[in-house]
């Protein structure tokens, strides 16, 4: 199945995430990743949804049925900036510390916590780079890890602000 990235602007009402997720569940669509957060416009939230589907058009139409959905863009084919953050806690013994610090620099990651036997690294990048970083760091012994999921923005002038959509609707 093809992987699609959808950027969805919604009204920031209680339950709106639940409505979107519930629709995916009941229609049997497969969410690979979903991130939601505030935008530049108060009252408008933005979701980046990565979905596996052979019929993304139908997914988009079903999402549009939700009253609070303002705009959906399928940016799969667009040039985009894709970012994801990961926090990794490693078991660290003295002998590996220098090697890990060097790798962290190569990936422009940050060491954000150092304790006697552990180290927490924060790393941000495109999904492939994050995958790559995790592969490289894994042999040192990962104790905990959390990825944020992907947030996406189209490069250049294309794209929508929440305010613009609200204004259009008010006309």
């Amino acid at each position: 199945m093809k992987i699609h990235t959808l950027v969805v602007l919604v009204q920031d009402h209680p339950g709106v995430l639940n409505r979107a997720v519930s629709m995916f569940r009941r229609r049997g669509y497969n969410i690979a990743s979903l991130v939601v957060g505030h935008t530049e416009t108060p009252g408008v939230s933005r979701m980046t949804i990565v979905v596996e589907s052979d019929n993304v058009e139908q997914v988009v139409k079903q999402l549009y049925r939700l009253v609070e959905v303002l705009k959906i863009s399928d940016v799969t084919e667009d040039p985009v900036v894709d970012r994801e953050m990961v926090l990794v806690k490693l078991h660290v013994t003295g002998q590996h510390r220098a090697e890990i610090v060097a790798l962290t620099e190569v990936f422009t990651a940050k060491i954000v916590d150092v304790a006697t036997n552990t180290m927490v690294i924060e790393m941000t990048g495109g999904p492939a780079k994050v995958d790559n970083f995790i592969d490289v760091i894994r042999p040192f012994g990962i104790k905990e890890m959390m990825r944020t999921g992907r947030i996406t923005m189209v490069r250049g002038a294309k794209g929508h602000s929440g305010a613009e959509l609200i204004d259009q609707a008010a006309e």
Partner: protein
Amino acid sequence: MSEKRTGAQILCESLIQNGVDTMFGIPGGAIMPFYHAMWEYRTDLRHILCRHEQGAGHAAEGYARSTGRIGVCIGTSGPGTTNLVTPIADAWMDSTPLLAICGQVSSAVLGKDAFQETDITGITMPITKHNYLVKNINDIAYVVKEAIHIATTGRYGPVLVDITKDALQATAVPDYSKKIFLPGYRPTITGSKKQIKAALSLMLKSKKPILMIGNGVMMSDASAEVRVFAERYKIPVITTLHGLGAFPEDHELSLGMPGMHGWVHANRAIQEADFLMNIGGRFDDRVTGKASTFAPNARIVHVDIDPSEIGKNIEVEIPIVGDARIVALSMLEEEPEEKLVAEFHKNAAEWLTYIRELQTKHQHKQQYLNRPDTSTMLPHDVFAALTKQINTRGNYRVVTDVGQHQMWAAQLLDWYKPRTHITSGGAGTMGFAVPAAMGVAVAHPEDTVWAIAGDGGFQMTNQEMIVIIQENIKNMKIAIINNGFLGMVRQWQELFEGKRYSGTPLTSPNFQKLAEAYGWTGITVESVDQIDAAIERAYAIDGPVLIDFRVEREVNVFPMVPQNKSIGEMITE
């Protein structure tokens, strides 16, 4: 307007301002403040006390489907609202404008498993067009306005408003002026002119065209426009279950119902057509049979107000998103070349003649009636008598339940006028007929409203019969097609499961006596020669009458397309 009101008073005033005059419901703890306020507004806001919230919900659906206006039902928190779930799901599937008003526990105890607390907005999220949890008195007025707007525009559907008890009890100066602001909700009403032109030019190139009309034509009151369109181009018209009545069945262009229990000629016409325009139908699997085999030769145009219906079940060549009536009007504005139209007429006429020949070969409607031995009473005898008397007398509405009788009614009664056939289609909710007919009877006191049900479905909601007496409703009759089985399941067991009648034989009470216990007139009919007299008596009595038609037990609905087969493969006997 500057005086303070309680939330409950604001709720009443908002409902009245938004055109509500009738509500069906049952009170309880959390919703009591609303009932307290309702008393002041009772001349403008009629409340009909039902016996089960499911009955209230279906009654509101009947009211809505027969009028096109919002139907309102009320339940208290907890079980009061969970009992509304079935009618809400039914309204969702059949695009019925329904407003469900629910009492909720006070906001202070919300989320703490308080007495009669249920997360009804969570439960109904997948089966409502939208829903609200209102915790603040200042939200009541515009939420009601917004909810009714959403339910009655675009593709109609159910909206639920859950209001906490403290919001109903609080007092505030109401503000009814706040405008609806729904930036994410802007239904497309006008069809694209370009698509409409393309659809017409595609149609005019075809030799075997079919026009299929469904619920959308009913809901947007497009019957007249669609008829003019069909007549102008002389296209044969197929009416789906929810389209019955949207095009008169005695019209020379009418082919009747398609699908699982549709007519052989209608299904064959679809399978042989080279062009099919579906207005306001959603290509339900009961219409299409196995979707990949549906209308294999046809180039398809789909007119629907909901873009998500287009391409969902059947791939189409030309989608037109818009309201059925507005799109039909736009199609009528088009003036294609006379020469093309004349050629099209010629081909369409040959095509219609061909379909009529098919119809003569596969004539089911009358064959049972011409049988030599009428010592047993078939459902067909009952429906023949009903359609004759119903149509002769006029001013009627028919509400059917779900199962064999529903299909016989669709097939064997004659449908001429929109909103005269009301049934539970998409959800297939047994127990729909009696309460929904009550809602129709309330909305149309001038019409005789027939609820037709099987002995199974009837027993799921017959408690609502007493509401008819309490409310002094005189214009409702019930016909039970009583065959002592859950008949449609039994039919499948007979045809596909070696007659293993597991869980289908059904013992019933004496329905005549049951009717009398409720204060209705009850009649039992056991043979063909009693049918006419019973129906005549039902009409002669100015009040509710129930007729128990004890028909032959093991009769099947034919024609039939087995599940997931092509509609070209019909079992006819």
